[in-house]
């Protein structure tokens, strides 16, 4: 979700009431909004509800967007806050399920071996299971920083906290997830290799 001139043009047009521009903006941002919401709520239907509320808030408030700031950070801020609210109001779920397989994705994965395909599904299941034990803010920080790949400063801006708070949440989340991975999903964390040659290109 890199900000660029095209985004700004779309934002301006949508803020002026252009529905087609807003449709295009939705199309560009929806997958990352749903994915971030899904990784925080752990449920696709909840994630879709969160995404719907995010885009409706954007529709109503686009004219307030400051073009000197990063649009994606603003979208993440709304998404994460809505997802945390959803998580808190709904309470913990029982067993959380990985995303249903997308036929298009299955086609793309056809070239990969069976082990690779299983690995992703198990990885997602492990994350949903282990992340359910994290505090909502820790989970949100981990999702934005580690899964979505945002910079620490962007996460801090999105959550309205300091960078040191982000680092602290991230440290605690990593510690809990690492312990959970080693305890509950040892197969996902491979044994250290015995022939470590390092620096291999």
């Amino acid at each position: 979700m890199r900000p660029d001139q095209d985004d700004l043009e779309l934002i301006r047009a949508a803020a002026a009431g252009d529905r087609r521009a807003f449709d295009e903006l939705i199309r560009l941002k929806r997958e990352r909004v749903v994915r971030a919401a899904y990784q925080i709520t752990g449920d696709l239907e909840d994630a879709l509800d969160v995404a719907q509320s995010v885009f409706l808030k954007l529709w109503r408030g686009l004219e307030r967007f400051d073009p000197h700031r990063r649009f994606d950070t603003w979208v993440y801020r709304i998404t994460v806050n809505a997802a945390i609210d959803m998580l808190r109001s709904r309470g913990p779920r029982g067993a959380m399920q990985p995303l249903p397989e997308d036929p298009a994705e299955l086609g793309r994965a056809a070239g990969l071996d069976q082990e690779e395909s299983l690995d992703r599904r198990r990885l997602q299941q492990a994350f949903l299971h282990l992340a359910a034990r994290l505090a909502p803010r820790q989970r949100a920080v981990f999702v934005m920083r580690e899964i979505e790949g945002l910079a620490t400063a962007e996460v801090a801006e999105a959550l309205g906290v300091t960078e040191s708070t982000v680092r602290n949440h991230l440290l605690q989340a990593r510690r809990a997830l690492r312990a959970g991975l080693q305890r509950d999903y040892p197969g996902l964390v491979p044994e250290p290799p015995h022939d470590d040659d390092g620096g291999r290109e």
Partner: protein
Amino acid sequence: MKDRHLDRDVLARFENLRAQERHEVLAHTQRCGDCRRRLAEACPSYLFALLGSEAIPSGALDRLSARINDEIDRLEDVNRRGRWPAWWSMAASLLLGAIIGGFLLVQPDAPAVRRAQLPDLRGPDEPIRAIEVLSTPSEAKVLDLMVGDTEIVMIFDEELDI
């Protein structure tokens, strides 16, 4: 960094890789079991970075777009309908104001004529002799007013049903 195995330098910088480089590293790691192992050795929770490319089913995304559009249509419809009563009430107020104003302009001395026709209730030399305010158990207020020889009793009671 096109499809090369992860080296120590990349692993050490993994957290701070630029978006494009990170994308390439993860794309390679999706396909390469050895590099996944290296990533997990560096930090087991780095494995979850691979979920950043998890695809959301396109059917769900299309459903989302449809839901958003339906909701915006509904909100705009409500806004449009909500605006009409405000316009109508404003127009009706203006019309009423214009009618009253026009009436007063045509008969500028009408209120003065009506005031002259009112009976004079109290002469200038007849003072108010007594005002007594009484309270009743039902919280009604009674005002007993003497004007000259005339006694006027006023009862103020919200519960009084006439």
